[in-house]
């Protein structure tokens, strides 16, 4: 209680502070709105491409066989438990947003070690059956662990983002931005005509 009361500004500052807080809140909401932040909670790939710098990854994924079965989060977020999933997402998301806003993104993005492990385990999660041999399991786990200790994309170099990695690698790819495909004015007209 004493702690909170310390935060309350002196009488004559209250009005400007309230106004300022309002402005900040408004700005924050606005930022979240225009950057489509709410979409970050979902699994739609369009979310990630919100930041145009992710366009190459989107475009390459979109043209890969994995498009049909995987979303970004199937690979890039841990799936061992739900808390870990959102914790990881939030942590990553905040760093990405910060770096993006600060314009400190590198020309060529490299996946971080932590992210690597996550992706790798996700490959295994889906392809496990292909990789395990029950006869061998009967002889111990070693050989399976060995077999899976190398990053899958050491060999599968094009899965799923291709072999050219740069902000500029797919300059003409068409990457959707989140939102409706029907322009607002058209929506309006249609709903008006419905009313009539």
């Amino acid at each position: 209680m004493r702690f909170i009361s310390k935060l309350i500004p002196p009488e004559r500052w209250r009005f400007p502070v309230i106004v300022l807080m309002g402005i900040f809140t408004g700005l924050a909401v606005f930022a979240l709105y225009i950057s489509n932040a709410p979409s970050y909670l979902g699994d739609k790939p369009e979310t990630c491409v919100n930041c145009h710098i992710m366009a190459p990854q989107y475009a390459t994924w979109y043209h890969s066989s994995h498009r049909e079965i995987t979303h970004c989060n199937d690979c890039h977020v841990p799936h061992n438990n739900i808390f870990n999933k959102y914790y990881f997402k939030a942590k990553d998301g905040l760093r990405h947003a910060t770096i993006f806003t600060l314009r400190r993104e590198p020309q060529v993005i490299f996946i971080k070690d932590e992210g690597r492990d996550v992706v790798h385990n996700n490959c295994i999660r889906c392809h496990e059956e292909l990789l395990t041999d029950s006869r061998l399991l009967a002889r111990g786990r070693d050989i399976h662990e060995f077999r899976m200790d190398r990053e899958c994309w050491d060999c599968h170099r094009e899965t799923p983002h291709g072999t050219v990695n740069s902000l500029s690698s797919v300059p003409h790819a068409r990457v959707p931005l989140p939102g409706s495909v029907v322009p607002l004015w058209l929506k309006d007209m249609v709903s008006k005509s419905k009313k009539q």
Partner: protein
Amino acid sequence: ASSIIERRAEAIFAYTPAVTFPPDEPRNEVWGELFPREYNSYMKTSETDFKSKYNGSAMVDMLEESPRMAVLWAGYSFSKDYNQGRGHYYSIEDIQKTLRTGAPDEGVPSPQPNTCWTCKSPDVPRLMNKSGIAEFFRGTWDTKGTEIINHIGCADCHDSKTMNLRISRPTLLEAFEAMGRDIEEVSHQEMRSLVCAQCHVEYYFNKEIVEGVDYLVFPWRNGTTIEDLESYYDELGFSDWTHAMSRAPMLKAQHPDYEIYLTGVHAQRGVSCADCHMPFISEGGQKFTDHHIQSPLNNVANSCQVCHREETQELIEDVYSRQDKLLENRNILETLLVRCHVEAKAAWDRGADERQMKDILNGIRRAQWRWDFTAAGHGNSFHSPVETGRIITGGIAIAQEARVQLARLLSSQGYFEELPYPDISTKAKAQEYIGLDMEMINKEKGLFLENVVPRWMGKGREREKREYVE
């Protein structure tokens, strides 16, 4: 938040030209008004502070690095002065400074023809357009001192109207024609190397095409491998000069960057010069081509790592290890060639005749051609390490074959020991050994740079003011 909006807008921003200029506009700053990103990055070729193990943006005095070269070029102007090039920004300054162009002044012509200007400036297409190709080449180098003043730039590679890549030098067109290829048919990706191939190629001056003119030719009629080029010169009976010691009819190889590159795995996979030396970058939501043409080792992230996911240090090591392995043997070849020239001279001195020397001299010519081909392209060892290695190996075999014959010949003249290797441990010693009076040469050049060059540049700028009234 605002930065997000701004950056989206940047990407969409529609461009309306505000400046217009003639197709041959040689002044880069004029183009720069329209394309500031490209211009600003291009002007960074003026930086000289990056040094890799063997290359980089600083000027490297190659004769100081390896004084043997002076002996290899005895009797030819390269023995006076040879550097590893630096950025395009310096093309004019460096051709004025090099001792190879001499110290021309009123009544004293340069030892070089105007052909030397061909790869140094966007003033060249402008002048060729005016006077015709052969007329451009005619006359000594000093006669265009006031006409050519802008360093390499936009008009060398771009069409001013569309900004498309274009070939501005006739020599490349003629070389394609000679190979029976149509340059109009090349892909855009090839153009991203061919603009470089206008200059970064082996060339020679043909005196027979137009009377009294050193006509610039790329010797590609039989193809672009070293053997193809050699057979071309042999068929022509061509030699650049006669070696002052061995009297061998020599060939000089000049930066066969493109030819060697073609034989490497990157070219075979469709990677172009621009992919490594002019990678795309994006700035403020806008993708553009980094015009800071330089060693990619100063920019591994945008060049190599776009395709390779290894650590920067590891990629740099890859380049160095190839350069090390090849340099080891190129140095051996260089030393053997010094011995060849020394031994051949001794054989002449002891009365050998033409008939006895013929094969030996031809061997020296062929071996040194191989050495020079690999040494003159500063990126060769990385651009195509296997081919570069193959060429050096061939050179060593031939040089030593010549030395076996020389050993027999010298022995028949009563000389059974190995001749002593000259003391050429510094550039100065090597130049003295081949009889150059460097003090004199440097003094004259100093006067030229002090008096003549400022005059040329001043007159040139005035001319431009007259010609391009805004």
